[in-house]
């Protein structure tokens, strides 16, 4: 996933900018590596709306029909 120049959100708990990090997302026992913005201190991960309602729904549906 492409990372915007300026991260749209920052961690309110740690008051830090999020940094692109490789994390795993999983559904129904299947895990995929994906690069997401993550707080380097507390580990909060940001899943943007377009990802949640786009690609994620698509993959969820595919996995549900497997």
């Amino acid at each position, binding site marked *: 996933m492409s990372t915007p120049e300026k991260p*749209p959100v920052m961690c309110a708990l740690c008051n830090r900018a999020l940094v692109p990090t490789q994390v795993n997302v*999983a559904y129904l026992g299947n895990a995929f590596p994906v690069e997401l913005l993550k707080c380097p201190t507390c580990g909060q991960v*940001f899943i943007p709306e377009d990802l949640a309602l786009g690609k994620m*729904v698509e993959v969820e549906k595919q996995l*549900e029909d497997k």
Partner: protein
Amino acid sequence: MEQKDLRALEELCIQECAPPCAAACPIHVDARAVLLDLAKGDVDTALNTLRRTVPFPGIVGRICEQPCRVVCNRGKVGADVKDAPIEIAALERACVDYGVVKVDKNRPQPKRNKHVAIVGGGLSGLTAAHDLARKGYIVSVYEALDPLGGRLWSYPEERLPHAMITTELSLIETLGVEVHLNTPVGEALTLDELRDHNEAVYLAIGAEAGMTFGLALDGTGKIVVDPVTFATSRDGVFAGGSLLRGHAAQAIDSIADGRRAAISIDRYLQNVSLTASRVGEGSVESCLYTRVDDIAPAAIIPLDAIVGYSRADAEREAARCFQCECMECVKVCEYLAHYKRYPRKLVREVYNNLSIVKGTRYSNQMINACSLCGLCAEVCPTDLDTGAINLQARETMVAQKRMPPSAHDFALRDMAFSRSEAFAAARNAPGTTSSDVVFFPGCQLSSASPEQVQQVYAYLGGALPAETRLGLLLGCCGAPAEWAGRKDLVAENLTGLREQLQGLGNPKVVLACSSCIRSFKARLPEVAVLSLWDLMAERGLPAGAQPGNGRVVNVHDACATRHEAGLQDNVRALLDRLGYTIEELPRSKARTTCCGYGGVQWLADPVVADKVVARRVEEGSADYVAYCAMCRDFLARGGKPTVHLLDLIFGTSGADFKTEAERPALGWSQRHENRARLKRDILTKVWGEPMDGPDPIDTLRLIVSAEVRARLEKRLILDEDIRRVIAHAERTGRRLVHPDTGRYLATHKPVAVTYWVEYAPVGDAYEVFNAYSHRMEVVEDPPKQGQSE
């Protein structure tokens, strides 16, 4: 579902049965397909379709006796005067007259080194010769006269031009058949000799010959022939045509005999069963049902039997064929129409879907998208209930642990809410320990109209005999679990209901919701139930109902009441008493349609549900009256002004019909809050129970604009989900922030769904700007701090 069950269900769907014309034709010419192409002007394709089954179409088109025409459904159209059936033979002839033979794709099969002798060069013998030569056998025809054709030459020239006979029969030699003219079989050349040099013989010598070749004869002196295989008493010798049928034999029967004998000879030479799978050969009755009462009459195009049709007239006559098919269920069902399936195809796909072990199950959504409304079974000539198949499939998917988690989750959570402390309650009448009658309003009437539930309870107190102890039961009938294929949850819910009813002294149950009535009758047969509408029809309306003053309304029957004729009549009686004039919808009562809520269709396939409601709202010109809370809201959301019957019975003063009918459908958050409020209100007012302190999460005040509210509804995100996210974020401090706007973005996963909420505190409230959700979850590696508390 077992393979044999699948077969039985498939058999019930008759859509793929041959139409009457093809069934009646002894060689099953697909006249429907031929006429379809001809009507479109594609005469070449029509001709080539014809040639697939008819060996000599130019001849047959001129002399066929047309058993097809006798049964043609066009002849059944019309009220007093029936249409003439279609001139099928003349149209077949027109195919030959105007069509061009395409390159023959059905090349003869590779040569087989086996010899077959055909005795008799008439239609029957030449059909057998044609079919066997195409299969690669070495075929010789022995004809007593010269030329080939037998009794074809007895037709007058104008009916069957000699040139046509010569041209079409020349095909035989083109196929490599060896023709022996002036070669009678009997004395100079005996059957024994033929049999010695050939592996099989077909006797098709016509009626005149009167020869018996030493074969076994019946009492009348005719050669004994097996009616299915055309085998005679002698091994490898078959017989058919007018030899068996006599002078009155129809040409088309002679052709059919030749074809069926050729099938037997092929099997005989391949040493396989002559008798297996031969049902349906010859002229049979069609099992296809085709409705004709909605077909417009169409006059026959005049035919000059000698000249035949002009090409244009042939196309016009062919256009009178209305392409017989059943499709009764598909015509009335948007779901089947959307998925472009009739039950036979659907059943096969459902079965395949359930059988997949590894790989994508493409039919999951189709199975879940059916509303289970039962209309298909109602209109089906064989009562096939496609919904019942889909429901069974869902139950199987659940059992296989293959049901997509997202398919019914929202509806099941709604059901769980109805069964939770927030709503569920069972109370005997105040001051009593047992009830004679309890009111069970169900979940969605309580969601839509908590005030009306209280009004009904008050009404029942007055309408029932004074000594009646009237209790209340708030809960769920289990319909959503049933629709989701969750037999376990249905059973669990029933156990709870039984216990509650026992605690209430096994009272009679008054039901206001159509789905509840269906569920109770099907699953709690030991419980005496009474619909509110039946009760009101008997006991009278409450005072203060809004008079209808003759206003015309259409009644939308709930699909769950399909077989509740008495209830449907009582609904109409109540409307009549209120002063409304009822115009029946084209599809009502036993043939009513679903609103899109049934079977959780709206959740599994919103596109189909929208089509279902769009069609329904188009059907009536007046405003609708529904008597199911969900029907009311789904029809209103579809743009049809619709009132609930209770709106009229307990019409709030001042609110006129139109305002009531056009009020927007309720959102899901409101539905939860209304249920919770109903419980608090009625238990406080009637039972004097102290109101428990509300759940602190519910006190978290939200500010939601109309635009955001609409988005939340569409995304099925409830206020309670949002409150949980915000409460979690505010408590833990874990949230993100937009540096530019200062708005927070918080996330939380209460159970299976992860919610994201963009919000900002405003005084003691929280303004919500956006929310979305997903089911995938982030798996931290290595896990750092706990994902949630």
